[in-house]
């Protein structure tokens, strides 16, 4: 029993991390049709920014943690917005080129991080509470998993409310369908694109700082290693569907935990099988509408 509880809660924690990456991916893909390969770099940069803050302050205090979360999110948002502004926007409506630019950016930035911070991982310590555990039904659940889950839920709620109740949200949802018609209604849709990138980047940056505490380190490869799972989650959930991404994140991560525990460490293969199965049975993903 305690094992199952442990697997489920840690699975949800991992899923929360996937979701923090996938939410931005899904949002950006949904609006712009761009599969953003550079998303991992937004995350890595957020993590490094958080690290630099921690180095300058007392690494183990809660204030530092909070500051690094804020800075990570802001850096992620700024870099993502700049990416949209300087690279993606120039390639208006040329999706494959937009994807390729992000591929190039991912290559270049990872190499740049290598150059700046070195290829070795840099280890991160947070508040002591983070690495302690809380006992739930006999399972010793690491505390940072709760933080991850809460952060992911907040991000999900935040984005959903934003999309539903703000004018920007309306513009973005309309822009997903038909960009040029939005401009033809007298709205500067490009601003919305930048905002979407910024939101996605902020979620990734936030995820980066949290990931660095979860993994215990920051390295230039950090984002890339999460990205592939985020892709899978995005597709299983249904491209462009935020709720789908959330469900799929939890599903994939929990499944992964169970397969790792009970099926001899075959978690990742199981996820691949799940992806294949979902696409063959329901090609649009769990909640996707577009093929």
């Amino acid at each position, binding site marked *: 029993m305690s094992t199952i509880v442990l697997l489920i809660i840690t699975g949800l924690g991992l899923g929360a991390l996937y979701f923090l990456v996938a939410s931005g991916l899904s949002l950006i893909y949904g609006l712009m*049709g761009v*599969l953003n390969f550079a998303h991992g770099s937004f995350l890595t940069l957020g993590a490094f920014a958080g690290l630099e803050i921690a180095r300058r302050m007392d690494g183990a205090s809660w204030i530092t943690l909070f500051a690094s979360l804020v800075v990570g999110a802001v850096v992620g948002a700024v870099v993502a917005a700049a990416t949209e502004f300087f*690279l993606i926007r*120039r*390639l208006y*409506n*040329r*999706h*494959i*080129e937009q*994807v*390729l*630019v992000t*591929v*190039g*950016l*991912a*290559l*270049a*930035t*990872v*190499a*740049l991080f*290598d*150059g*700046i911070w070195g290829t070795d991982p840099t280890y991160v310590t947070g508040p002591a509470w983070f690495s302690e555990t809380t006992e739930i039904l006999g399972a010793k659940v690491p505390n940072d998993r709760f933080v991850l889950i809460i952060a992911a839920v907040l991000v999900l709620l935040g984005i959903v409310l934003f999309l539903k109740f703000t004018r920007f949200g309306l513009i973005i949802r309309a822009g997903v369908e038909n960009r040029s018609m939005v401009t033809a209604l007298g709205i500067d849709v490009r601003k919305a694109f930048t905002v979407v990138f910024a939101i996605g980047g902020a979620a990734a940056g936030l995820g980066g700082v949290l990931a660095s505490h979860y993994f215990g380190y920051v390295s230039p490869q950090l984002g890339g290693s999460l990205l*592939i799972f985020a*892709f*899978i989650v995005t*597709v299983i959930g249904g*491209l462009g569907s935020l709720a789908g991404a959330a469900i799929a994140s939890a599903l994939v991560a929990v499944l992964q935990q169970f397969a790792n525990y009970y099926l001899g460490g075959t978690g*990742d*293969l199981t996820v*691949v*099988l799940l*992806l*294949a199965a979902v*696409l*063959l049975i329901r*090609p*649009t*993903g769990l909640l996707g509408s577009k*093929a």
Partner: protein
Amino acid sequence: MKLLTHMKPWMWWAVGGAIAVFAALLPLINLSIPGILPGPTYTPGTLQLLALALLFSSLALSYHLLFGVGGMLSFGHALYFALGAYGLGIVLKTTQLSLVPAMGLTVAAVICIAYLLGALSLRVTGISFAMVTLAFAQAGNVLVRRNPQITGGDEGLQLETQNVPDFLLGVLNTRNLYWVALALLIIVFIVVALFEHSRAGHVVTATRENELRVRVIGIRPFMVKLVTFSIASVLAALVGMVHLLLQSGVTARASSADFTLTILVIVVLGGVGSRWGAVVGAIVYTLLDQRLTALASSDAIAGLPAILRIPLSEPLFILGTLFILVVLFLPGGIAGAVQRMDKGGVRRNPAKETSSEIARDKIEEVT
């Protein structure tokens, strides 16, 4: 100047043939291009690099068939390259077959696997197809890394040389391998060109444009896509085999998503939808990739202030940035740029809209 536009098809083939003959003579002549080639063209190091470039050209052409012609954006093409390399490596290691029968056996296996996985992945299209192929390739990569007894894991599989003819072994015979790579490129080029001009080639192009419409005129697009997928996979596997011989081994990187992305980068660099673009793109990429590493560790860069030195001493940074610049400022890649230069500023006749540009527009819809 509108040289290229006015060239007849036979002229293209004539020019291509001349280039092939010249390429075949390279190991016999002493040609130095300082800064681009590591040494004169007859030296093994240079021939090795050129042979790699030729193999990447063939691989890029096989991907061109899949993506540029068939519109199938695959993130798992590397799997078939790896199947060829690992397949041949394992057959040579575990059986007493000599090289050619071993290759035959591997091709047969690849056909079966490509057919099976292709049939599964082609049930979906667009980004979903990309993701399924990615997932299969990823699974292949995991299997390679987890089974070191068979594949050598992440240490790689070494070529068992016992049944490989001597003229393909050793640095002094690099030029023989170079010729093999050149021959392979010529074969792949011809196969791809013939396929593109066949009826099936036309149907697969049409399918890329509008799959539903193909069905409504009474053709089942699935089969012709599967055939295209299988041909592209077998070609990639052939390249993998020669690569195994050239490198005397293969490593897990060959089956990684990164490697597929590399091929994609090459095809885009050359120009999506253009055959010779794929070839030129691969050559440019390989030379850049190898030479940038040398540049990054050169004294010139070591002496720069940190803000320049750090980025410039990372080859991948330079490559990535260059790639971004190409995408931003050279739409249609190298092929597109040459075409534009050729046409000058003259306004285009709608009827002569080049198919590669159209192809690009269309493929955007796929993703």
